């Protein structure tokens, strides 16, 4: 998976590394700002009321 990704990335090692880090940062941001806030509501510790 990572080998395949590394192969697809353009340029030499330095550029590949930059692209890879950029991809990781983008993915982390997507998780952090979009997916985690959504997924967090589905988890049990979101419910704190008595009902």
């Amino acid at each position, binding site marked *: *998976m*990572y*080998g*395949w990704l*590394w*192969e697809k990335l353009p340029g030499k*090692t330095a550029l590949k590394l930059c692209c890879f880090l950029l991809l990781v940062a983008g993915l*982390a941001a997507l*998780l*952090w700002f979009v997916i*985690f*806030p959504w*997924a*967090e*509501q589905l988890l*049990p*510790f*979101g*419910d*704190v*009321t*008595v*009902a």
Partner: protein
Amino acid sequence: MLGKLVAPPRPRPAPARGGDRNGADNKGADGGYSDATSQPGPNLTPRSSFSGAARGTATVRPLRPRLSDNDQSGGELLPAPPGASKNKSIGRASIPIARTQLSSAIATPLNQPPYIVEEQEPTRHRRDQPATKNPRVIDRSRLRKEPLLRRVVRVSGELLITLGLVVLLFAGYEVYGKTWEINAEQGRLTQALDAKWDHGGNAAPTVHDEPIPGEGIARLHIPTLGKNWVVVQGVSQADIKRAPGHYPSSQMPDQLGNFAIAGHRTPAIFWDVDKLAKGEWLVLETRSAWFVYKIYQSQIVLPTKISVVSANPDHPGARATRKILTLTTCNPKWDNYQRLVIHAEQVRVQDKSQGRPAELGS
């Protein structure tokens, strides 16, 4: 190995024992060849001296190069090949190489295994050299050759490692991300609440009028924890996402009954409320007044015990006789099969014009 070769000068002509010496000589020539190619400097002298010694001692020599004894084949008359002369610029030093190559070419049938290996290995090595420097080529060939099972195992391993990192990131989000979000939202809520209180002036001294769900209605201070939050109206998931929420069915602070608040058990909200002890203060701030409460009970109940937020939590169903503040949050941390409930009783009310209550500390 070379020392061995040099040491016994041959008194007799070689042909007599060509057959039995064959293997040993080949070995010696082979070793000498490979040594000479890899490390030209130190090996040249012994070889030359050997050939010189051989020339000096061997009196009878066949004119034709012998297949068996290639070291004395007389190939020194041949000029050195370009590669050899480039490596060893001294004329004398180039001779053994030329001879060896000639003899190996002639003697191939007899000397097959060592020579083929010796001559092919550097070539193969050279061919591989650029490939190892280029990860693209190496990767592609490795992927193509990789067995399916191994590939499946590797990819699933990579996926699992990635999943582990994602879960780790989620744990980080739950603590730091949520804290950051809650603090940012609390800042916005504070601004909105202050604007509302400023705008309203003293016209409506309490929060009697029906608040909008999600809208800030009061500020809760826990002086012993050094925390305060804007409390919003409503306890739906959306309402209490970034702020403690007021159970809409419960009462307001200036009414007899229970002002019940639900808050997440996250580091930015009710994380440490289990550390609150009996007798400590909770302070509720509204537009016009400070409501000071004293904690009298902390209990862990089942999520179904809704009486804790009723008007009279100590005697469910009975008429409210006191003004109660109740905090509910989940217990244990990061789970929700219990509820942690803090009850406090209102002990006094201080008008905003009298400044901050002493219970808030400095």
